[in-house]
C-alpha cells in the first residue's frame, strides 16, 4: 500500500493475468471479455454487485469453470484450459463463496485435504494434525481439530475455509466474500493476516460487499458490472463513493422510502418471544400493513431462520406468531403468508415447468375454467398478466422457467408469491445473482406491493438494498434482536458497522 504501484507494475511479472475472458450460461452472459492483472505480493480488490460476474471470474481463475474464450497466465506462464489441478499446482488457493468444505470430515482433515495428490501417496495423521495446527496458528485461530466440520457454526466454517488457503504452497489466494459471517474483530484479524502474507509475497484477489474493507486492504481495485470491467487501477484512486457509483453505473435508487402513515393500526403480524434455542432467542417483531421491515445481520446470525419461523417453515421451541391477532394452525398452508427463497434453482422455481405454470402454482383458483378444472388458456392468460405487470422478459410464458435469466427468474418467483394477494411476504435476499437493471425493477416491485398494503419482511445481506427498500431495519446479532431503526436516519456505513458488531466474542 505504501509502495509506488506504478514502479512495481513495470518490473514484476503478474501473479495472475486474465485476458479477454468470456463466459455464457445458456442465454445469460456472465462475463463479456474481462481483463484482470494481479501484481505479485499485492491485494487486488474485486468489486461489483450481486450477479456482476465476480464469482464466475474467481471460478475461472481457479479452473472450476471453463471460459468460452480468453487466456489466463500464472506468474507469466500461460495455461491453456485451466483445471482445478493445474490451478492448485500453480499455487492457487480459493475461498469459495459456498466454502466447498466436507461436512463429514474433521477440521484437521478439511484443513489438510489435498485432492491433486497421486492416489497412493501415504497420509500421516500426525503430519496432518501438525499442518492443520500451523494453518490455524497463522490466523491465530483456536478451533478444535477433531470436531466434525458439519457440527461447527457458519462463522467457524468460514474460518476453516480461510485457514485452508494459507498452506505453505499457496502463492495466489482468491477470497470470495471471506467475511460474510465474521465479526469486526475477526475481520480485523483476517485483514492484518492478509496484509502480512502479502508482504511476504503472497498475492490476493479479495472480493467483498463491504467496500470499506476493500478500500482499506487493496493495493489495486477492479470494478465489474454486468460481466464487464468498468474501471481498474491503483486503490489510491478510489474511495467508497466512487466505487459504489461505478458498481451501479450511476443507477441511483430513491432511497429512504416515504412510508404511508399507519397511526394506531394494529399490526398484521405480531411475533412475540419467538425462540429456537439453536438459532434465535426471544424475538419480538410487529409488521404493519404496507410496511417494509428489513432484517440485517451476519451470515449465520439467525436472521434467515427467523424469517422461516414466521412463515412456518421452521418450528420454534417457544413463542408465538399472531396474524391479525390470531394464531394460525398451519402458517405454511396459508396463502396470505408467502416466503420467497434466495435459491431460485433448488428451493424456488420448477425449472422445467412453463413460466405460467410456475406463476399460478400458489393460486390455482385464478386459472379455473368451466367445470372447476384448470383451463390451459386461463393459465397462459394469468401468466401474461404477470409478465406485463412484472416486465418478465420472455417471448412466451409457455417457455420453461429455466430459459430465463436470473433477474427474470426472480420476477417469476415474485409473481408466484404475489399472485394469491398475500398480506405478508418474507423475502430472503431477493436480488442474489441479478443484474443491476433487474435489481432496481425488483426493488420497485417490492415497494409497489407494499404500497398496495402488503407487509414485507426483507432479509438481505446488501446494506444498499436494505436502505433502498425498507422503512425500518431490525438488527439481528447472534440470534437476538438488538435494535430497530428507521432507515431515514441510517447511513450505509453505520448500518455495516452495526451488523459487524456481531454478537460473538
Amino acid at each position, binding site marked *: 500500500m505504501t509502495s509506488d504501484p506504478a514502479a512495481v507494475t513495470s518490473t514484476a511479472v503478474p501473479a495472475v493475468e486474465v485476458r479477454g475472458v468470456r463466459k455464457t450460461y445458456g442465454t445469460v452472459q456472465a462475463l463479456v471479455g474481462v481483463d484482470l492483472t494481479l501484481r505479485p505480493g499485492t491485494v487486488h480488490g474485486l468489486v461489483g454487485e450481486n450477479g456482476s460476474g465476480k464469482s464466475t471470474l474467481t471460478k475461472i481463475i481457479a479452473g472450476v469453470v471453463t471460459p468460452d474464450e480468453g487466456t489466463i497466465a500464472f506468474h507469466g506462464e500461460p495455461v491453456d484450459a485451466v483445471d482445478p489441478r493445474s490451478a*492448485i499446482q500453480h499455487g492457487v488457493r480459493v475461498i469459495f463463496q459456498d466454502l466447498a468444505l466436507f461436512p463429514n470430515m474433521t477440521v484437521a482433515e478439511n484443513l489438510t485435504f489435498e485432492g491433486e495428490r497421486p492416489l497412493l501417496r501415504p497420509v500421516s495423521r500426525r503430519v496432518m494434525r501438525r499442518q492443520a495446527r500451523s494453518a490455524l496458528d497463522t490466523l491465530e485461530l483456536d478451533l478444535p481439530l477433531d470436531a466434525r466440520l458439519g457440527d461447527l457454526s457458519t462463522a467457524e466454517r468460514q474460518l476453516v475455509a480461510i485457514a485452508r488457503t494459507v498452506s505453505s504452497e499457496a502463492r495466489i489466494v482468491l477470497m470470495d466474500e471471506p467475511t460474510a459471517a465474521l465479526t469486526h474483530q475477526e475481520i480485523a484479524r483476517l485483514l492484518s493476516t492478509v496484509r502480512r502474507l502479502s508482504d511476504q509475497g503472497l498475492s490476493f484477489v479479495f472480493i467483498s460487499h463491504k467496500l470499506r474493507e476493500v478500500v482499506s486492504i487493496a493495493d489495486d481495485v477492479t470494478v465489474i458490472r454486468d460481466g464487464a470491467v468498468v474501471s481498474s487501477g491503483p486503490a489510491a484512486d478510489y474511495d467508497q463513493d466512487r466505487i459504489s457509483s461505478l458498481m451501479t453505473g450511476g443507477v441511483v435508487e430513491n432511497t429512504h422510502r416515504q412510508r404511508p402513515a399507519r397511526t394506531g393500526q394494529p399490526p398484521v403480524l405480531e411475533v412475540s418471544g419467538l425462540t429456537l434455542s*439453536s438459532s434465535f432467542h426471544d424475538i419480538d417483531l410487529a409488521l404493519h400493513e404496507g410496511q417494509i421491515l428489513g432484517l440485517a445481520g451476519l451470515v449465520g446470525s439467525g436472521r434467515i431462520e427467523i424469517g422461516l419461523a414466521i412463515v*412456518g417453515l421452521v418450528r420454534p421451541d417457544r413463542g408465538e406468531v399472531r396474524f391479525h391477532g390470531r394464531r394460525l394452525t398451519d402458517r405454511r398452508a396459508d396463502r396470505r403468508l408467502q416466503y420467497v427463497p434466495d435459491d431460485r434453482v433448488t428451493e424456488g422455481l420448477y425449472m422445467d415447468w412453463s413460466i405460467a405454470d410456475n406463476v399460478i402454482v400458489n393460486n390455482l383458483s385464478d386459472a379455473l375454467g368451466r367445470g372447476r378444472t384448470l383451463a390451459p388458456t386461463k393459465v397462459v392468460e394469468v401468466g401474461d398478466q404477470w409478465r406485463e405487470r412484472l416486465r418478465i422478459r420472455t417471448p412466451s410464458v409457455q417457455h420453461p422457467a429455466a430459459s430465463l435469466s436470473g433477474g427474470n427468474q426472480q420476477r417469476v418467483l415474485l409473481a408466484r408469491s404475489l399472485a394469491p394477494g398475500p398480506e405478508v411476504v418474507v423475502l430472503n435476499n431477493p436480488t442474489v445473482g441479478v443484474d443491476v437493471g433487474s435489481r432496481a425493477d425488483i426493488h420497485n416491485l417490492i415497494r409497489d406491493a407494499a404500497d398496495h398494503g402488503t407487509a414485507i419482511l426483507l432479509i438481505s445481506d446488501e446494506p444498499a438494498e436494505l436502505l433502498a427498500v425498507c422503512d425500518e431495519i431490525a438488527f439481528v446479532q447472534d440470534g437476538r434482536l438488538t435494535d430497530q431503526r428507521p432507515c431515514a436516519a441510517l447511513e450505509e456505513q453505520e448500518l455495516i458497522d452495526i451488523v459487524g458488531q456481531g454478537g460473538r466474542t
Partner: protein
Amino acid sequence: MTWLRSGSRELLLAAVIIGLSLIFGLLNSQFFSVAHLFGIGRSMVVIGLLSLGLLLVLITGGIDVSVSATAVASMYITTVVLLEVDFHGPFLVGALLAGAVGACFGLVNAVLVTRLRLPSLIVTLGTLTLFRGGLLAFVGTQRLRELPAQMSEFSSSQLFTVTSGVRPATFHVSVLVFILVAVAAAWALRSTSWGRSMYAVGDDDEAAKRLGVAVTRVRVTAFVLAGTLAGLAGIMSGALNRAADPYTIVGMEMDALAAVILGGAAVTGGRGTVLGTVLGVALITMVGSSLVLVGIPTAWRQLFVGLFLLLGVALPALRQRRIARARGIVEAA
C-alpha cells in the same frame, strides 16, 4: 474423545455382538466351542469380501447391488476356463483370474455410472440381473462338482487345527485372506490420498472436484475394486463349497448391504469404516449361523437380515431427526 464419538457405531456393534454371544452361549454351550467360532469365521469370508467392496462404493456416495452376480459369474467363468485348459497350477492363479473377471464386471458398472451419469442403484440393479442372466444364458446352468485340482485342494487348506473338543476345529486359510484384505482396505482408506479422496467424493463431489480430485477416476476405482473383491469372494465360495454352482450367492447382496449399513456407512456417502463393516458382517453371520443352535428355524435368517438393514438406516436417521428438530426444521407433512 473423538475416537469414541466417531467410533460409537463400532462400540455399539461390539457391545451387541458380546451381548448376543452371551445369550447364545447361555442357551447352548456349543456356541462357545472353538469349532463353532471358527465356523463363523469361515462363514464370514464370502459375505465379508462382498461387504468390503460394497463399502468402498458406498463411501463414494454410490451403491453396488450387483456384487453377488459379479461374484457368482466370476467364480463360474473362472472354473469353466480352468477346467477347459485343464489347469494344474497354484490356486493363486485361479483367485487372480476370478478377481480380474470381477474387475471387468466392476468396470462395466463404473462406465455406465460415470459416463452416462446414471444413478448407481438403477445401473447395478440392471447389471445384477444382466450378469446373472448372461451367465446362465451363455456360460452354463450346470452345477460343476468336479473342480480344478488346486481349487478342491484349497477347500481343505487349514491354517491350523485345534483338537480340544469332540471334533477337531479347523481354521481355514480363506479367513486369513479376508483378514488381510480387510487390513489392506483399512490402511488404504485411512492413510492414503486415494482413501481420503474416496471420502471427499462421497461427502461433497463438487468440493472434491474444486480441490483437484479426479472425481471420475476415484469413482471408477471404487466400482472396479468392488468387482475385484466380489470375484475373489466368488472363487472363495466355490472352493469352500467344493462346487461351482451358478445358483449360489444369489441374494447375498442384501446381507452385504445390511452388514455395511449396520457398520455405520451412510447411503448418502462420505461415511463408513472397515472396522464397522467387519463388525456388521460378524453380527449378521453370527446370528445367521447360530439360530440352529438355539432352536430357531434357519428360515428366520432373512427376517433378521431385513431387521438389521432397517436398523442400520434407522439409527442415523433418528439422530438426524433429533438434530433437525433442534434446528427447528419442519418435516414435510
